[in-house]
């Protein structure tokens, strides 16, 4: 196990209070919420109370607007494919950002294969989209605009509210992937003007395997998992009762702690950023310095590769991640950092630090302490240097490309 955990955007530990809230629903209140008898109705009531709580926390008008799913990814898939199927007759065009999470990008790629057209709006160097550009991409055929609220790599917060004013005026559904946002910044569906909004519990100290999609009343949406008709016919399958209880409990705690936590994380982040930039040469602080998640600090270090950085940190007990190719399932360099206009090499050299409720100043200082040495060691090993950069290498050895068929 790692002593220091700087990867809260990947996942978070479930809080003991949350586990405790769930436990009785495994062993005692185990009834199927669709069952008529008391043991079943006990589960039904618990699920509906949790739904009400989640609706309230999101500022939704009606608990019926909350659909529980098996993950944040499923919530995004349901929003995108669900609207596409329901509105296919009205149009076949969808607008999104170039920096969306694969949970949004991949369903869209899937729709593209079926004849939908998707516009991937770029972002600026700080990783933020221009609302005017998003709106300008809308055509007569547009049925959905999907703009993430907070980015998972660089933590930038997108101007969803500004965009929704326009989509609303044109009667186009607006989806926002708020998986990284909930628990970290204010997320209120009416302030955002979102018609659909995806959440995942394990990002705010709830359990893995439970997500939710907010669906504004009147938004047409087809189901993507068919069966017994649970969740008002939008998501069939026996309800994950303990998961739903844990989701609501974790969200309640996260929301109660949010503002105090955010202030603390922002000051820790500033300390970290200053420490890193002061102590490591040729380091870039990626993303917007202000419009970003409180706990996110993302860097790129010249001439070195992110996975190696992550492995060296791991050997010192520090858990962090990289937007680097090798750190994820895909071997491509982070499409987010590329979309900001950085080179593939800069993207490979990225390190993402995401702090959370238990992060301490001492942990930040430890990172500031060990990072320069690791970077220096990797740079020593790097074939790139001030003279022989990746760019000159590319010019010389450009033919050495190999197919990416994995």
């Amino acid at each position: 196990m790692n002593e220091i955990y700087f990867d809260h955007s990947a996942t978070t530990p479930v809080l003991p209070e949350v586990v405790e809230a769930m436990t009785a629903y495994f062993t005692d209140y185990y009834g199927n919420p669709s069952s008529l008898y008391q043991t079943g109705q006990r589960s039904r009531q618990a699920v509906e109370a949790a739904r009400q709580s989640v609706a309230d926390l999101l500022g939704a008008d009606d608990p019926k607007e909350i659909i529980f799913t098996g993950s944040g990814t499923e919530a995004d898939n349901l929003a995108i494919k669900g609207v596409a199927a329901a509105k296919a007759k009205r149009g076949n065009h969808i607008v999104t950002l170039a920096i969306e999470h694969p949970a949004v990008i991949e369903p869209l790629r899937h729709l593209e294969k079926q004849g939908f057209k998707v516009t991937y709006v770029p972002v600026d160097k700080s990783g933020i989209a221009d609302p005017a550009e998003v709106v300008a991409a809308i055509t007569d055929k547009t049925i959905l605009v999907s703009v993430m609220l907070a980015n998972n790599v660089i933590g930038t917060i997108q101007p969803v509210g500004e965009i929704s004013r326009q989509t609303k005026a044109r009667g186009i559904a607006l989806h926002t992937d708020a998986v990284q946002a909930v628990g970290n910044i204010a997320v209120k569906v009416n302030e955002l003007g979102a018609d659909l909004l995806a959440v995942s519990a394990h990002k705010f100290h709830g359990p893995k395997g439970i997500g939710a999609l907010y669906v504004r009343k009147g938004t047409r949406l087809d189901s993507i998992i068919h069966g017994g008709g649970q969740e008002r016919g939008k998501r069939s399958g026996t309800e994950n009762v303990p998961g739903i209880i844990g989701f609501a409990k974790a969200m309640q705690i996260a929301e109660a702690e949010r503002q105090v936590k955010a202030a603390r994380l922002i000051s820790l982040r500033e300390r970290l950023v200053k420490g890193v930039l002061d102590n490591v040469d040729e380091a870039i602080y990626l993303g917007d310095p202000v419009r970003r998640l409180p706990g996110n600090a993302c860097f790129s270090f010249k001439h070195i590769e992110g996975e190696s950085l992550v492995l060296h940190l791991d050997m010192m007990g520090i858990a962090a991640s990289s937007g680097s190719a090798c750190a994820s399932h895909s071997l491509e360099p982070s499409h987010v950092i590329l979309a900001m206009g950085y080179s593939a090499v800069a993207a490979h050299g990225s390190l993402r630090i995401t702090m959370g409720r238990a992060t301490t100043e001492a942990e930040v200082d430890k990172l500031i302490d060990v990072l320069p040495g690791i970077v220096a060691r990797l740079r020593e090993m790097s074939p790139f240097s001030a003279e022989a950069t990746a760019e000159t290498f590319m010019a010389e050895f450009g033919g050495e490309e190999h197919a990416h068929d994995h």
Partner: protein
Amino acid sequence: MYSEKVMDHFSNPRNVGEIADPDGVGQVGNPVCGDVMKLTIKIEDDKISDVKFKTFGCGAAVATSSMVTELVIGKTIEEALAISNKVVAEALDGLPPQKMHCSNLAADALHLAIEDYRAKQKAK
């Protein structure tokens, strides 16, 4: 994800650096893919007397680079040419499947370095 041997070579890489006046240089990979390896070799009496590497890349890339240098020192050119990427991966007790293709190029770099040496010999 990585075997103990990979992590050993990653954390204590052997023969890091660049030979000042090499007999052969081999460079492979692509910065876009995230893995670039540069091998410099010294040849004496048809044998590889010294080899050093520099690598930009992930754990697998560093470990395979280190492993190939260890495998090759003291070998004849013929013996060195018999070392394939597969041999290197096996010497490391295997690599994760997604790492086999892009990050396991150290033997290619070695072969290019030998080619470079031979080309230089011919040119003499």
